[in-house]
């Protein structure tokens, strides 16, 4: 009798483990943006470092004296930032689209849209606010401002994608606050936040999720 009960328990054990695995997989697959690629982070990081180096070595080191120069610098700085943003988003979409294809996931699903929407609101707000700061001449605080809004956006969107995004967001927020305290070294914190952190988190995520 005892033996019979044991046999009955042990045979379906495998099935129950498989069931739990299937449940977890289906919950994740249906509610999370899993095609986000680690390579997107790595390329965004490299682009940010190149962009920041350009800003630092060609513009900020030789602040223009006349008003005309200042305006010109502002426009070049803005173009530099926009270029970094567009290239990063372009690569992020490309690598994520490729990963979705490889893993046979649907690229555009509810979770993708939720991620974009929840990241987009703080990001757009921060972007507009940064533009206002730029045209009002408060250039020093912009690095801190972009880090803070980006970090808040990541934390906000992280429940629809990988948990690492949550910690990346927290890191960006801390760097943003640091950049506000050490106001005149903002570009260093910006480079760490958008450059180094993206590369580090991108590499971690690439190793953890993409190589499998």
């Amino acid at each position, binding site marked *: 009798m005892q033996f019979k*009960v044991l046999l*009955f*328990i042990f045979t*379906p*054990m495998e099935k*129950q*483990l498989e*069931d*739990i695995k*299937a*449940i*977890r997989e*289906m*919950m994740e*697959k*249906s*509610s999370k943006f899993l095609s986000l690629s680690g390579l997107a982070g790595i390329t965004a990081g490299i682009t940010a470092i190149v962009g920041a180096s350009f800003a630092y070595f060609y513009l900020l080191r030789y602040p223009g004296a006349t008003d005309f120069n200042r305006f010109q610098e502002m426009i070049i700085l803005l173009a530099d930032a926009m270029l970094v943003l567009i290239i990063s988003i372009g690569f992020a979409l490309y690598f994520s689209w490729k990963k979705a294809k490889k893993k046979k996931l*649907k690229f555009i*699903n*509810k979770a993708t849209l939720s991620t974009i929407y929840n990241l987009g609101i703080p990001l757009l707000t921060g972007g507009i606010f940064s533009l206002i700061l730029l045209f009002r001449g408060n250039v020093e605080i912009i690095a801190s401002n972009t880090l803070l809004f980006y970090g808040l956006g990541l934390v906000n969107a992280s429940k629809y994608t990988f948990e690492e995004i949550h910690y990346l967001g927290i890191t960006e927020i801390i760097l943003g606050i640091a950049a506000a305290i050490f106001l005149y070294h903002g570009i260093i914190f910006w480079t760490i936040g958008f450059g180094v952190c993206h590369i580090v988190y991108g590499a971690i995520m690439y190793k953890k999720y993409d190589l499998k």
Partner: protein
Amino acid sequence: MANIISNLNKAFDSRIRLGIMSVLMVNDSVDFNTLKELLELTDGNLASHIKALESLEYIQSSKQFIGRKPNTQYAITDEGRRSFQEHLNALEQLIR
């Protein structure tokens, strides 16, 4: 032990029904085609399992129109959520 096994819900014995319930546990509502793609099923296969879960009142459907196309949305009921949670607890206890 025997008591725990009896807590396993027979309705969730099939992997497909398990899948449907899992998706609806974490999404407010999901339409037929999304479910079909997620679970990699044919129309008929999915429909029969949905029907079974609907008749148990574990899930509910609501029809709406997107343009002229009918679109059926599925959502989990309170009863469904409770039953699935019980099933999950039983599974967890069994493999402990």
